């Protein structure tokens, strides 16, 4: 069974990769009770932040 070492903001824990075999070194993953469930998509993460900033900027411009 594939295990990985995951850094939680300084605390490193062993995490089971059975449900995320494609996880690779350097990836960011969502972990629940010791198992990686999903990979964070950096491009989507960037787009979400851009959308947030856009919504906020529109509100500020209007006020």
């Amino acid at each position, binding site marked *: 069974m594939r295990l990985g070492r995951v850094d939680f903001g300084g605390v490193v824990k062993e995490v089971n990769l059975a449900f995320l075999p494609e996880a690779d070194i350097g990836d960011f993953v969502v972990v*629940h*009770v010791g198992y990686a469930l999903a990979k964070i*998509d950096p491009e989507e993460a960037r787009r979400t932040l851009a959308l947030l900033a856009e919504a*906020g900027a529109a509100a500020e411009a209007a006020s």
Partner: protein
Amino acid sequence: MKYVDEYRDGRLARSLAAAIARAVDPSADYHFMEFCGGHTHAISRYGLEDVLPTNVRMIHGPGCPVCVLPVGRLDAALRLAGRPEVTLCTYGDLMRVPASHGMTLLRAKAAGADIRIVYSTLDAVRIAEAEPDREVVFFAIGFETTAPPTALAIRLAAAKRLTNFAVFCNHVLTPPAIQNILESPDVRALGRVRVDGFIGPAHVSTVIGTEPYAFFAEEFEKPVVVAGFEPLDVMQAILMLIAQVNEGRHEVENQYVRAVRRDGNSKAKADVAEIFELRKSFEWRGLGVVPYSGLRLKEAYAAYDAERRFGIAYVPAADNPACECGAILRGVKKPTECKLFGTACTPDTPMGSCMVSAEGACAAHWTYGRFRDRQRRAP
């Protein structure tokens, strides 16, 4: 931490709050339920209710695994732990949940029962391997996020031909609970809460995807927005829900696109399908008996089913009559409307399950919200 801190940015939160204030129709009311306890916790911890317009109300749903476990199932686990040959392995947050007669797993452990806290299901399998003379039972609770790890542990135990490992399965499913909140006939006693839209769970959706919510969006004409657990995620989801309500739409949208895919995690889903099947019905604390809402082990894995192996009979047990957890879990009452809240019931001496888990509505309000109540009351 990357991908966490940027979604907690206070300045951005304030401008998003302004965007929400601009988006609401002042003549309308918006009632949104965050199903998942992780969101309840985030809303309380970051004080999101303070920055929302007064006509946007968040209703805290039943998506807290510890909170919805009925007392009767906990009593059964305590009976199991009382058997001298049994080692009961459990997630830590169950230890202080009150069962019948004020008993808890923690008290049973203090009285000599062999109860051990594990971080992951694999720890329980390791204990069974290392201690072949013990009957190791994993007390499995939780939603679609914790069911795959339980399934994997059973698969692993089977592969290792362990004969001293079993699972006391209490896994429950999110979609039937949402449906229950929307249409159950037995809500009459508690009243029905108006819900105009749902914030869909974050981690659960990484497993099941966004597809299972399509039914609610269509059948009940309620918008669903799957959201991440950070405060900006929740605020963006609220903004998306407001837009849907204003435009008369009821669709499934995904705010948590950085982690949730439409079809979820196929490997995790396949493991669950291999090991588990639906129970005809399962009792939830707060929701009562909900059809097809729980999982049990398939016949092929009966050897790993603690209920079959130890002949566990389910005896329903009543909650403390003064405890309002039932109404609170449905969003019908607020924690402060319970007589026990903050008096007999605090996180140190929880009477009801909503006070036990950090994800519970009462514990979240006690920890982060009660100071605001006091400020509001002050002249």
